């Protein structure tokens, strides 16, 4: 029983990690209808910047803030320089540009910081919480991950549901031309959407790095599973991203725990296919607009 709970808790913390990256993907998809395959690489870059800042001897939290601020700038710059030119081109072009960016950023990080594996400090202790007299597979840092991811989801929900900025961002995403005719500064909002998503990504990087092995490629697999999570949840639903992340994390943990580690990706694939068979647009897909 203890094994079951530890596997479950391990799956939950892994799932929230996926969710944190999936949220960024969802934000960008909502804002610009693009899947940002460089989302993980951008997070990697901001985390490396935080790593450099930490190395200068400033504390953890200043470095944390620096990473988020760099995300804000990075997201905006990427959108302005790379994404805007392909925004109204065939969607495959954006796919290739984001993959190109992924490759480019990993090369840059390798050239600047080296390809070596590192450890990255966690915001809080990673020793497990003690329940009764045993440590469980859920640490203080895992609690922080839960709080951070949930806070992010709530913020995103508030933004989209209750602010006019969110309203305009959605309009800019769903119907750019109609939005412009209503006085919405679409191009600026698309940039802002990428900035917000990159901040979410920077946060994800800071959450992932301590639980993983920190190197220029540390987000690659996370991105694949996060994309899986976003697809399961429904690509434009922030809540779906969290649920999708948890589902993915738990599925991987149970498959790995009871069937063997090598079957994890197959297990994830089977689960994804089953979910999409039942709900082709993910669990939390919104009522689909007519597509003509």
């Amino acid at each position, binding site marked *: 029983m203890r094994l079951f709970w530890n596997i479950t808790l391990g799956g939950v913390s892994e799932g929230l990690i996926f969710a944190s990256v999936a949220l960024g993907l969802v934000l960008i998809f909502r804002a610009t209808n693009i899947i940002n395959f460089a989302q993980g690489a951008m997070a990697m870059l901001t985390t490396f910047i935080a790593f450099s800042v930490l190395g200068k001897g400033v504390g953890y939290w200043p470095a944390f803030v620096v990473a988020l601020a760099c995300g804000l700038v990075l997201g905006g710059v990427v959108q302005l320089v790379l994404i805007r030119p392909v925004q109204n081109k065939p969607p495959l072009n954006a796919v290739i540009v984001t993959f190109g960016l992924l490759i480019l950023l990993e*090369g840059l990080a390798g050239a600047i910081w080296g*390809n070596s594996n590192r450890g990255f400090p966690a915001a809080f202790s990673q020793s497990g919480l003690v329940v009764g007299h045993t440590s469980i597979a859920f640490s203080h840092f895992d609690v922080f991950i839960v709080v951070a991811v949930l806070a992010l989801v709530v913020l995103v929900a508030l933004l989209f549901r209750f602010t006019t900025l969110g309203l305009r961002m959605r309009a800019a995403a769903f119907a750019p031309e109609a939005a412009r005719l209503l006085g919405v500064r679409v191009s600026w909002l698309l940039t802002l959407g990428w900035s917000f998503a990159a901040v979410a990504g920077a946060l994800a990087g800071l959450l992932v790095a301590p639980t993983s092995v920190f190197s220029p490629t540390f987000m690659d697999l996370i991105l694949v599973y996060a994309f899986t999570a976003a*697809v399961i949840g429904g690509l434009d639903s922030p809540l779906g991203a969290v649920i999708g992340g948890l589902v993915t994390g738990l599925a991987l943990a149970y498959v790995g725990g009871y069937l063997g580690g090598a079957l994890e990706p197959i297990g994830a694939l089977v689960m994804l296919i089953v979910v999409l068979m039942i709900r082709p647009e993910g669990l939390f897909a919104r009522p689909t607009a007519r597509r003509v």
Partner: protein
Amino acid sequence: MIKLRLPGWARLPRQPLLRHLLFGAVGVAFFYVLSISLSDFNDFQLGEVGVYAIAIAGLSVLTGVNGQISLGQGAFLAVGAYTLGELEVHQSINLVLQLLIAVAVSALVGLIIAVPATRLRGPYLAGMTLLLALALPFLSDKYSSFFGGDQGLITLPPNAPGSIDPQRWLTWIQLFCALLVVVLLANVLSSRFGRSFRAVRDNEVAASLAGVHVARTKVIAFVISSACAGLAGALLVLSTGVVNTGEFPLSLSIYLLAGMVLGGAGTLTGAWWGAILVVYLPNQWSQSIANAFHANHLVGANLAVIIFGAVLIVVMLAAPAGVQGGLRWLGHRLVTVSTGPKPAGNISVTLQDQPVSKQDRDGPESDRAATSID
């Protein structure tokens, strides 16, 4: 796949068939001369270009012509490769038969995957195929005694007739298969199947109103694509000499997709450009440029990666229709005087969920070129 294609063959107009065969024959002559004049290494790479051209041409039919974005082409290369590997280990049969079986098995796996996959909309299909490319090779890790584990299954190059160098013979086989596939695909695309593929891509509702069976059309495109990938995988491992999991990483699928788009999505000529880019850009050209900077080796290796990434981005920004689109644009500039429609470019694939009507108004679709191998 063969069964599905035959009706199309029967109705082929004589004209395109003859034209495509003519192109094929010219291709055979061209590659023969090229191959015998190249050094051993360049000849080996020429064979690789042929192999990747097959995989990309298949992907181009699926993604460029039919509008389904697949990030999992590499998985089907693995299926074809392992099929050939198992045949080499357990049976000694003729190469042609081996290749046909590899094609059949990957088409079958493609069919199994296609049934759920083709129900999905753009980005959802992309997500599923991406995970497929990651997950499928793990079967060979899990069942390593059957699939050969890390050491993999050994494949032997086919016996060459007479005194021909076996390596060169293999290159010819690879190139011949590539030309054959391109001619076959060109015919498929100029048949009613090709028209259905494009109709479904442009507008599924309109296509179904026009009597196209949308689901079946998508499945057929998927199966054709995976069959091509299977053939490419089988031919690839003949030249690497071994089949193992590491040969089919996620990045292979990404490179194939990038090659397809950079070459010119939806065009069969573009598949050749794409194959050249996949073979030379990441490992050769980027490395050469990086070497010119005389960086130390660790930075130099990363510099090559940086250059590769930058080239992907720059080409996509500068020539959104890829190499083939760019060449065609140049051709139009040279030949016609500003009255013709704009060159190829719009690939209406539905990764983005935006209204299609806008696209329709903005630019003329010029996918007619896709039907020929000009």
